[in-house]
């Protein structure tokens, strides 16, 4: 079958195809629906992630601020700061995703932009996700260990104002467990993050790469 001989048959299809949508109302109702594109879905997931983070952080901030007469108020402040940082982090991620939603460029340059932006997004996601949890763990741990210094510990042993936290923490009975726990958390978060990001975006990235390969093949 020769492709050129099929052009007329191909064009003839137009005559019978325009039945859907049947009215302007149908088009209007389509426009009122949510986009189901991969990027739109990623943006919606991101919003849910942000809402969950804000709720969880708010609960913990309230807990540390008011529990035990505010003994651990520093942790509440720290969590509050990290929470605000998260909001900026999500804003940046959303901005990157928004730039991926433009589809009026040439197909090839659109695919290149999408791939470049998605890879940037994933790098940012991975780095921030992998670093934030261990940092939060260590700072929270340091504050907790310092505040939970055994009563037998004399004030003299804590040293001058310069290094009281480190002195107290280094000699704390749970110091080793705390450090080992941090190492385990860091390693676990690294692999969990890697797996999760690959699961979320890996297929879409390979699909985009494959499409660009198809375009470059001669």
């Amino acid at each position, binding site marked *: *079958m*020769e*492709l050129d001989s*099929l*052009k007329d*048959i*191909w*064009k*003839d*299809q*137009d*005559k*019978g*195809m*325009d039945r*859907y*949508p049947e009215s302007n109302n149908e*088009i209007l109702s*389509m*426009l009122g*629906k949510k*986009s*189901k*594109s*991969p990027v739109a879905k990623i943006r919606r997931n991101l919003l849910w992630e942000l809402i969950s983070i804000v709720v969880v952080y708010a609960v913990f901030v309230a807990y540390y601020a008011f529990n035990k007469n505010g003994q651990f108020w520093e942790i509440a402040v720290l969590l509050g700061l990290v929470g605000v940082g998260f909001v900026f982090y999500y804003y940046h991620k959303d901005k990157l995703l928004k730039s991926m*939603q*433009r*589809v*009026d*460029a*040439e*197909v*090839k*340059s*659109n*695919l290149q932009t*999408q791939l470049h932006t998605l890879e940037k997004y994933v790098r940012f996601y991975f780095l921030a996700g992998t670093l934030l949890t261990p940092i939060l763990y260590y700072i929270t741990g340091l504050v907790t260990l310092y505040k939970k210094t055994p009563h037998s510990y004399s004030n003299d042993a804590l040293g001058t104002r310069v290094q009281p936290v480190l002195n107290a923490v280094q000699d704390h009975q749970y110091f080793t467990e705390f450090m080992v726990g941090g190492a385990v958390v860091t390693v676990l978060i690294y692999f969990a993050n890697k797996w999760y990001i690959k699961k979320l975006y890996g*297929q*879409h990235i390979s*699909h*985009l790469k494959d*499409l660009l390969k*198809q*375009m470059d*093949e*001669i």
Partner: protein
Amino acid sequence: MLHKVCNLYCATEYDKQDLFQEIVIQLWRAYPRFRGDSKFSTWLYRIALNTAISDLRKQKNLIKSVEPDLLPTEIQDIQYSKEKEEKLAQLYKAIHQLPEIERGIVMLYLEDKSYEEMEDILGINQNNLRVKMNRIKEKLRKLTKAVEHGVG
């Protein structure tokens, strides 16, 4: 034109309606940015193809279902001569076996677009498009033969 893109990139009626809706949404969102730097039809094809090609989910469904009974239902409804109808069904079946980008190129070719306009839509230079088109024609010849003989 939008229906043809949906038929090329989707196998089930549900996916086609989904893609149609997605393209309409994208057109609506992009329209305020249309400055007339390119022809309206070029702009339209860009959005339709970009939306269809980058949707991984529909591609997966298509790979699973290149059965003859899942070919575009419109074809069966249109009052073509039986021969024309069969040829078109064979063509669709063969095109469905091509990779996404080649499917787009074939569609633009069948729509009688010049290589210049195809370059404007796809971003592939005209020389490469000509070479690709010759390969695709050859591929389709083999695929349609296989379809005629009930293979593939």
